[in-house]
């Protein structure tokens, strides 16, 4: 019989390893939903995918405000980012004026989790 493992090994991984996300836009406002593949990961995401960290991740895009709405029933969250679309679908010079690709910018955020949750 193997001895019970008591130590916890923490690893840093991109959100991409733990969760999926979808981007949507209205005007110059972007929303990113975020759902962990495993509900046990939800608490770690609530702790680490904070409004301030998301705003920092999108600072180069001019994020002026980030609001986070938790959806415990769905084990997910909705992140709403203001002013990151550089004018939005009709105003941006960016190839992706909708911001549809930006869910994968969020999924690059590093998070620290118990390796057993991977």
């Amino acid at each position, binding site marked *: 019989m193997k001895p019970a493992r008591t130590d916890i090994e923490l690893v840093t991984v991109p959100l*991409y390893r733990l969760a*999926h*996300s*979808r981007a*949507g*836009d*209205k*005007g*110059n*406002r972007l*929303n990113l*939903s975020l*759902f962990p593949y495993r509900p046990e990961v939800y608490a770690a995401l609530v702790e680490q995918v904070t409004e301030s960290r998301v705003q920092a991740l999108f600072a180069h895009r001019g994020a002026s405000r980030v*609001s986070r*709405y938790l*959806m415990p*029933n*769905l084990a*997910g969250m*909705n992140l*709403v980012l*203001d002013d990151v679309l550089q004018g*939005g*679908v*009709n*105003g941006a*010079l*960016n*190839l992706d*004026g*909708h911001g*549809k690709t930006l869910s994968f910018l969020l999924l690059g955020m590093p998070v620290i989790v118990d390796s057993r949750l991977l």
Partner: protein
Amino acid sequence: MTTFLLGSGAGFSGDRTDAALPVVAELIRRGQPCALVFETLGERTLAAAHRAMRESPQAGFEPLLEELLAPVLEDCLDNGIAILGNVGAANPEGACEVIARLARQVVRADVRIGRVQGDDIRARLAGLDLQPWEAEAQALPGPEQLISANVYLGALPLTQALELGAQVVVTGRVADPSLFLAPLVHHFGWAWDDWDRLAAGTMAGHLGECGAQVSGGYFADPGVKDVTGLATLGYPIIEVEEDGRLIVTKPPGTGGCVTERTVKEQLLYEVHDPAAYLTPDVVVDLSGAHVRQIGPDRVEVCGIHGRPAPSRLKTTVCYEGGWQGEAEISYAGPNALARARLAGQVLRERLTFRAPPALRKRLDIIGHASVFDDDTGTLQHEAAGSDGDYRLRLAVEHAEKRWVERATQELLALYCAGPAGGGGVRRNLLRRVFTASYLVKRSDVEAFATLFEPEGTADEAS
């Protein structure tokens, strides 16, 4: 009361034009009360429609209308499947004429087409009490800049069209979910203050309005979130019960998937505060929503609640946005990234003295495998590509076309006057339409439905 089926035939302007066929086949096979919805009007496409109409008064409605409707119109008319769509865009009259012609071609000249009006408030805009929409605060453009102003109407005038006997309902700007809510209200007789049912019906619409986005589209990630059959995605069918219970599914034998994950992603798509999703018909609270897989490609959504509809309606205003220009040039092989960057530096320097300071610009570097590849894409599939394949992109914006032409011309000139091995230049210019959103008083908006008559006068709903 029987289940009502809502099929999606398109989720945006430019969507697959053969998507409705399997949906209609399944609706016919089921033989239950149902409707087919074409949602083809976004903030981008409304602006494009107004631009098209300025250039040709015969344009301004959904450009793919004929391709979308022709394959299914006859089957829908013969089987009592109501068709609803915001395919009218800036020119619902023009869309009605196309549909009437398509119906004549399949010997259904007696088709009843309902036309919803009242969204276009451009002529009255200056005299209305306007509030900026929450995320935007900009001054109203002057009358010379103003192209259009359209209110997001709710489901009520669409139900009036159905009451008039319309088999096809054509609208301009309405809230996307209202296209789905209207046939539910018409069928079940839901009261306009039955907020929980209106909210459930609105979320049925929200889940269906983007077509395949709830059934495996905008979702696949190879090796992580795999979806089979992306080339033959089944567009959704939403089953709605009288009490508002709803199930998302798709036609059998089609590609894609309906899972808790696809449904959860779409549930929050373009949503801000989940406790207050604003529509003209109801304020939806989906913060307590539950999503549950109840069978293969069948997902149940419940726990949706509603509150009284907002007193103001969102209006999209389109106004002159000057000109946008884009131009690109490729560099590949050894040191390609450095050459692309050098090209960008040269361009920036040239634009400081060849273009006015008011020129808004950006440069991007794009690339994987393009100019070195063959027509079959051999290099795209190799694990290690070439040393590089980069494409410098310039995008500029100015009120005057000549400066946009001048700036993009500077990128073209990199052919001969830029770094080594630059090629594959492309340029395009387009007239821009900017949009802004405001809130108008509901009491200032008068929406109504008429039956379209190609030559005669129309009957007005009371």
